[in-house]
């Protein structure tokens, strides 16, 4: 398997979409402060709390989605490579037994 194939398997189109959610989550977290809807010096207003919680959820879930998919795919790639290696060894043993 080439490196490009492995990268395509590790990062499918859905993972790029999840990365967009990561950026959206960052914006949702910082938007109350960037748009100055959160007055400085007082406790967070409900909209700020909501945005920080929802944005954090977006960040965590999108990152978990990308990393989890990558971990599962990496496990599959390693498993396929292991099975392929076992198969090659079996073929070599059969070829040796034939001769």
């Amino acid at each position, binding site marked *: 398997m080439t490196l490009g194939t492995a990268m395509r398997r590790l990062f499918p189109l859905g993972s790029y979409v*999840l990365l967009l959610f990561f950026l959206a989550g960052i914006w949702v977290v910082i938007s109350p402060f960037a748009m100055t809807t959160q007055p400085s010096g007082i406790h967070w207003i409900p909209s700020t709390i909501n945005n920080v919680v929802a944005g954090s959820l977006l960040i965590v879930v999108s990152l978990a989605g990308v990393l989890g998919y990558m971990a599962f795919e990496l496990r599959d790639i390693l498993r396929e490579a292991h099975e392929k290696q076992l198969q090659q060894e079996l073929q070599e043993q059969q070829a040796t037994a034939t001769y």
Partner: protein
Amino acid sequence: MQTTRVTIAKYIWGMTASLIILLTGGWLILAPFALGYQPWGADWANQTINDFWVGIPVAVVALLSFTLFLVSLIGALRASGVLVVTQRLQPVIAAAPAQAMMQTAAPVAPATYSDQSDLDRTLATLAAALAADLNSRRQAQASSDQQTDQTISNRRDV
């Protein structure tokens, strides 16, 4: 024997993440009204506008992402043979009309059309019956022609 291992955990993982994000996007749209920091009837506050216009693309793209992972899951299941691709069977008559016309109704078994609708089955049975009828007529005509030829040759011999 080589076995095919089906791994669907990664797709389920991606679909779950997309579903949670879809719900989060929906909540971002509804939150200003649900939490009451957007008064009813008043102009939308900046935070409401921001939440609304961030929530809509998040929800839409999350739905797209969910669909992509679902399509990948279905593709993997099809590739591994768990899901069978339903191919619409073409009637035998359409594939080989001359050969089918010479056959009787027996080859067109109902099992051949098991995946088709009732209308297709009915039409296939009707076509098979017509083919069998035409075949029997041709055979009858051929035998009568042979008898006629035999009679003519007998008369010549006499």
